[in-house]
């Protein structure tokens, strides 16, 4: 099974169009997010426990999963993860959250943090 294909190594016109489309998609992607109101509580789920913390009080809370302990830092009404033990640290890259529906997830360490609040969406149908 051998298709005759042409795959030049110099950029072509269509590549430029694709580049523009992808840049626009990336730049506009935050707008597709459900923009909840500022929430007061965060739900923290680890393999062992589900706890709820308030965003009103600053603090540094240990959250432990199978890989080790990270810290959920609450300051100025926002929460973010620090010192994550996972290899990719995507959870740290998810930044700090304060609006309902926003999440921080660490798949390898099985940690799930979510801001709960009045505007929360249960499901999104597409």
């Amino acid at each position: 099974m051998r298709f005759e294909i042409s795959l030049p190594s110099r950029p072509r016109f269509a590549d430029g169009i694709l580049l523009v489309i992808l840049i626009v998609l990336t730049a506009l992607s935050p707008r597709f997010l459900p923009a909840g109101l500022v929430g007061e509580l965060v739900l923290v789920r680890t393999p062992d426990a589900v706890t709820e913390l308030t965003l009103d009080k600053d603090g540094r809370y240990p959250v432990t999963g199978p890989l080790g302990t990270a810290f959920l830092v609450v300051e100025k009404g926002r929460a973010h993860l620090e010192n994550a033990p996972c290899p990719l640290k995507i959870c740290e890259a998810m930044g700090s959250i304060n609006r309902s529906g926003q999440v921080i997830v660490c798949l390898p360490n099985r940690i799930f943090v979510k801001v709960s609040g009045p505007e929360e969406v249960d499901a999104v149908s597409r």
Partner: protein
Amino acid sequence: MRSPARITTLALLVAGAFALASLERVVPNPFPMVRLGLGNIMTLVAFSILGVSGGAWVTAGRVGLVALLWGGVFSPAAVLSAAGGAASLIVMVPLILSGRFSLYGVSMGGAYAHILGQLTVAMLLYVRSPGLLALLPVMGTAAILTGLFNAWIAGKLTGVLSTQHAGRRTHHAANE
């Protein structure tokens, strides 16, 4: 069709993709959340010199080997890597067959599809929250940049390989 030369080339490219993907996991990365996706370089080379099925085999081989060697066949990491690989093939193959794109468009489209596929499967299987889309600005920008970089490297590599193996390739083509 299944000439020894083709199978050997394919095996080498799969091994190369596996080595690059492993290297990426071992070498410390100052931005761990962003993957270069170096394994895709070998997929692009396979598309160039072996055609559509070659690239598909290299992607499948890499995903399988990485899952076997780097922890659990059904671990979240392996499932997400398979999702990314499948999504990137679903996008790259039509881009190639359209005949309008170079390595750059195919590589960029594949890298972007890879993260979209991963995010979609993560949302469906593990997280169940659209909040995961918050990762798209960081991961999307990274996918565009690494896609362009990988296309550049793959272009260099394809150039070297096709001049070195020009004689063998004509012989190979005559057999088909």
